[in-house]
């Protein structure tokens, strides 16, 4: 199990380990596959996750007509027949636990007990932010998972400086980023809970501002400009894994906030704006209940905040606010992602 805050290198560590161990296994003539799955991308569903793993080996495996349990047996059969070992890395493991609960985790972790004297074909790496999530699981499942924990600490300022300096030559000419700008990037990333990914994105954006201003070097002012425009709470990959209607709904919310200077909008207003966005792209809008569920997910991701009005007005209404994210940046980012999505389909 790998735990740690946002941007502390959990995913990078797991993937690096996957690459290294696959290489090592190949040199020893052992067949091994490392499969990295972002559980949130598969809505935390055991069925969808296992289906993805099976399609690594059989790309045309049918998508329907069986249960998750059957799929688990299929996977083991495939691995046995191909004499292959698989390391399955379950990134954003929190969403898996939340969706499937203890039963599914138990099945995955205790798989080997059902097939004693046979080679262990499936090993797990669980990547999650907060180990507190595991409290939802029963004691026996927890004990299996918690036997081997790597807890990644927030990066220090000096470590962030080292990371940024290591990445710099990949994108910038020598001496293009002065030390004071690197220091400022590290400082800002450190204040964003030591998030290295945030720092790297900030540096990239500062470079774009320097280009736009025809500057030879990335001066601290470029970093400041970048910091005021960046979406700190919402990482780009979190937006990209939203489904089509989540993106459309969020785009509608961003547009509403951009158009009027209100601090809060109502769910009813957001629904109307969403209907307009759906009409623009020719999609049938989702129901009120579904939108309400999306809103709950946005809150969990830290994109929006919601508040249900109490007494004083007739009935109850949901207020939506966008406290941490510039609306125009969010609109731009979603616009790009949707364009890409429509081009692909």
């Amino acid at each position, binding site marked *: 199990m790998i735990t740690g805050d946002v941007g502390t290198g959990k995913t990078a560590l797991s993937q690096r380990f996957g690459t290294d161990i696959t290489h090592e296994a190949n040199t020893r003539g052992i067949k091994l596959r490392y499969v990295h799955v972002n559980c949130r991308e598969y809505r935390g569903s055991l069925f969808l996750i296992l289906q993805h793993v099976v399609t690594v080996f*059989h*790309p*045309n*495996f*049918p998508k329907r*007509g*069986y249960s998750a349990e*059957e799929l688990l*047996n*299929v996977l083991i*059969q*495939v691995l046995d027949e191909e004499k292959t070992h698989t390391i399955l890395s379950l990134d954003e493991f929190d969403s898996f636990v939340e969706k499937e609960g203890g039963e599914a985790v138990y099945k995955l972790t205790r798989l080997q007990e059902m097939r004693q004297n046979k080679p262990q074909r499936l090993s797990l790496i669980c990547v999650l932010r907060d180990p507190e999530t595991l409290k939802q699981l029963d004691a026996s499942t927890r004990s299996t998972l918690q036997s081997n924990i790597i807890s990644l600490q927030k990066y220090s300022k000096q470590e962030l400086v080292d990371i940024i300096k290591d990445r710099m030559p990949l994108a910038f000419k020598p001496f293009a980023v002065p030390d004071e700008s690197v220091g400022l990037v590290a400082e800002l990333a450190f204040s964003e809970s030591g998030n290295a990914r945030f720092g790297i994105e900030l540096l990239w954006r500062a470079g774009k501002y320097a280009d736009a201003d025809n500057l030879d070097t990335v001066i601290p002012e470029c970093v400041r400009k970048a910091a005021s425009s960046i979406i700190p709470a919402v990482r780009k990959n979190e937006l990209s894994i939203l489904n089509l209607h989540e993106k459309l709904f969020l785009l509608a919310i961003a547009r509403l906030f951009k158009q009027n200077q209100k601090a809060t909008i109502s769910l009813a207003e957001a629904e109307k704006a969403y209907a307009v966005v759906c009409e623009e792209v020719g999609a049938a809008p989702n129901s009120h209940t579904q939108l309400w569920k999306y809103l709950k997910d946005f809150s969990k991701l830290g994109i929006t905040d919601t508040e249900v009005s109490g007494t004083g007005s007739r009935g109850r209404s949901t207020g939506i606010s966008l406290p941490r994210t510039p609306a125009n940046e969010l609109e731009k980012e979603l616009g790009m992602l949707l364009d890409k999505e429509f081009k692909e389909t």
Partner: protein
Amino acid sequence: MNVEDVFSSRLRMKILKILYAVGELNVSDFARRLKVNYASTSKHLKILEEEGILQHKMFGRICLYRYNEQSAKAKAVQTLIEVWEKQNKN
């Protein structure tokens, strides 16, 4: 079966072409791509299997068809399709 009987069916030829492109497939997906019913698809797959050109593998309740790797006939059919497709592209 004589070679002319095996290849006289348009559906069987389409099955062989699809399989050449995708590697393996289950009966329902074949039927969907061929736009014919399950029973008819299954019948033609069985004929090709009896001829030793195809083989099937069970994964629980799921049955996937693919070319029979041990069969000289299967290799010959795949070569035929490969050459045909290449010539048509040029």
